């Protein structure tokens, strides 16, 4: 018999066997290996076997049976190997996923990984997935995040990008979280908004699935008696998978996945794989949510601790204030009353004594000196008051208008005109209103001792960087910068300049509140005071 096949030769050439290709050269010298791997599928071998059958060789039918059984077993083995390969990949994938899910306490990271795993080709390969979370406080199941293309065009673009970048699952998820999470949430905003179901609606398929704690593969959604038509229309697919997320018997949320682009059939195997995956996802989501809550509580506790510390400091300050208050009250009472009596009676006597009386001048001196002493007493008491400022947010316009109102009589009687245009768009400033009013009044009173002909004071307010800048310009006072600086030193001899302690105390008071107070003298243009009022609490020193 002429043989076409090379099965009886120990060594062959590459051209002798149509089944052997480049890279399989080792089979050319190994007859046994070549026979097992190639002859069963080789047409030349089958031709030889047919010829044996034609020649009524008794081994031919036996060989044919052996060959058929060999081929069947070979196919089975190949199928098993393929199955094992898939399972190995799946286990490796779940292991990788589990590592990320177990280590993360960031809700967005967990969700990004979960949805990327479901929709990525290297993961479960679904086209689109929605994540719904249970809001226990509001008693609703609410759409939280969606992932996947909305149309064929976007799908082609995204999938091409993924293939070209060849990123692993973890990198894909990270990339998604950093670059696409917000846009993806916005992209599916309309669907997510409508994917809200009250948990009390026990007949709704999603709630029913959640309560049943088992995944449901919905087919024929548009005609399905349990699927509300609006849900089918919203998803726009005939087949979808609803996967409840349950952690420690608690309902965490749900994943809805579908193949809205490829329309590939969702198999039972897909469902079982996703079910395995849903447990670590649910657990990770719950842990991340709890961590978020813990974080909020921690912040609350920290804030409460901070407030408690502030309160403790306040109590200490209040005790100090009470002490200062008692001392100053005592001084006020024991000094002011005698001063008042001396000054009062002196005034009374002055009224009744004629100008020609030789004692008239003496009495006038008593009145003047007691007035001066009362002024000093007021300033000392104001200073003690300023040691413990009470700050809050106040309107600058109200501050200026109050000071102008309080000083209006005195300023008018000295022939002064004041100008202020309130700006209603100014932010509130963080100050001790009482002290600031006192300072403004002092500055305005200080100005009336001017000797210039232009008796006008203009006040302006301007919004700055985290502050409001208040400027008071008095064109009537003409003193040098050195003299003005002298006025700003507490307890320096300033009487002849007519300002007493006022300006120095203002500067001290404001500086204690961390508020810059600048007084600039221009020999022929008067004085400009600049007060920078903070608009933020932390700006305080």
């Amino acid at each position, binding site marked *: 018999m002429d043989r076409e096949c090379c099965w009886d030769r120990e060594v062959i050439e590459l051209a002798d066997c149509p089944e052997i290709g480049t890279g399989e050269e080792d089979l050319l010298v190994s007859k046994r290996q070549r026979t097992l791997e190639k002859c069963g599928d080789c047409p030349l071998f089958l031709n030889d076997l047919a010829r044996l059958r034609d020649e009524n060789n008794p081994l031919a039918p036996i060989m044919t049976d052996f060959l058929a059984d060999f081929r069947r077993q070979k196919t089975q083995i190949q199928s098993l190997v393929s199955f094992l390969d898939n399972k190995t990949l799946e286990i490796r994938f779940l292991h990788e996923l589990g590592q990320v899910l177990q280590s993360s306490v960031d809700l967005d990271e967990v969700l990004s990984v979960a949805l990327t795993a479901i929709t990525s080709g290297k993961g479960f390969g679904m086209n689109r997935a929605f994540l719904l979370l249970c809001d226990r406080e509001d008693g609703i199941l609410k759409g939280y995040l969606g992932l996947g293309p909305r149309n064929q065009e976007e799908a082609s673009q995204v999938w091409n990008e993924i293939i070209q970048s060849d990123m692993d699952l973890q990198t894909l998820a990270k990339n998604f979280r950093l670059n696409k999470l917000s846009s993806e949430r916005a992209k599916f905003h309309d669907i997510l908004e409508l994917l809200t179901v009250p948990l009390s609606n026990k007949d709704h398929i999603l709630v029913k699935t959640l309560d049943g704690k088992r995944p449901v593969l919905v087919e024929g959604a548009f005609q399905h008696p349990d699927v509300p038509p609006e849900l089918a229309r919203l998803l726009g697919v005939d087949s979808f998978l609803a996967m409840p997320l349950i952690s420690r018997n608690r309902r965490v949320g749900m994943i809805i996945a579908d193949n809205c682009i490829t329309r590939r059939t969702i198999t039972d195997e897909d469902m079982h794989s996703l079910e395995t995956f849903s447990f670590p996802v649910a657990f990770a989501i719950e842990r991340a949510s709890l961590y978020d809550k813990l974080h909020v509580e921690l912040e609350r506790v920290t804030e409460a601790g901070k407030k408690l510390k502030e309160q403790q400091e306040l109590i200490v300050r209040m005790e100090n204030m009470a002490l200062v208050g008692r001392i100053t*009250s005592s001084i006020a009472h024991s000094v*002011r*009353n005698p*001063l008042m*009596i001396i000054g*009062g009676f002196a005034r009374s006597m002055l009224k009744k004594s004629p100008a020609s009386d030789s004692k008239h001048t003496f009495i006038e001196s008593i009145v003047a000196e007691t007035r001066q002493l009362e002024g000093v007493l*007021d300033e000392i*008491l104001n200073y003690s008051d300023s040691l413990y400022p009470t700050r809050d947010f106040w309107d600058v316009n109200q501050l200026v208008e109050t000071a102008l109102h309080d000083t209006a009589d005195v300023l008018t009687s000295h022939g002064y005109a004041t100008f202020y245009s309130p700006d209603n768009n100014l932010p509130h400033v963080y100050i001790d209103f009482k002290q600031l009013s006192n300072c403004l009044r002092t500055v305005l009173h200080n100005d009336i001792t001017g000797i210039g002909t232009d008796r006008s004071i203009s006040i302006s307010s301007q919004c700055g960087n985290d502050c409001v800048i208040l400027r008071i310009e008095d064109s009537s006072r003409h003193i040098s910068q050195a003299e003005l600086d002298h006025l700003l030193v507490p307890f320096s001899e300033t009487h002849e300049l007519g300002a007493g302690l006022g300006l120095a105390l203002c500067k001290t008071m404001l500086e204690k509140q961390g508020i810059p107070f600048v007084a600039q003298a221009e020999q022929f243009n008067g004085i400009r005071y600049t007060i920078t009022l903070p608009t933020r609490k932390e700006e305080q020193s």
Partner: protein
Amino acid sequence: MSRLLVVDDEANIRLLYSEELQDEGYDVVTAASSAEAIETLQSGAFDLAVLDIKLKNESGIELLQKLVKERHDMPVILCSAFSCYKDDFSAWLADGYVVKSGDLTELKQEIARVLAKKAQKLKAEAK
């Protein structure tokens, strides 16, 4: 002639107030303590009271609260050596507040203002 009650624990201050306010045309009666003030008030009607906040071991604020409760038709002006009482909520019950000074102009103006306000109120009620 308006009748005023001046309550202050300092004899010289009572004397000064009497002199000055009588010069302004008021009928002035003085008291040195809360008890004396209440006793005086029972003896007749007063148009206004001027109270010192610190009365030896007593509080003028307590007397103020009592007066507001029992003699709500009589306005009260608080006089103090210290301006911090202006921020005391209880002091807000008073119709006026004046920091003590040898120059009684502010006190006199405040008395005139409060009495005018009272007269206006009575006039409106009579209508």
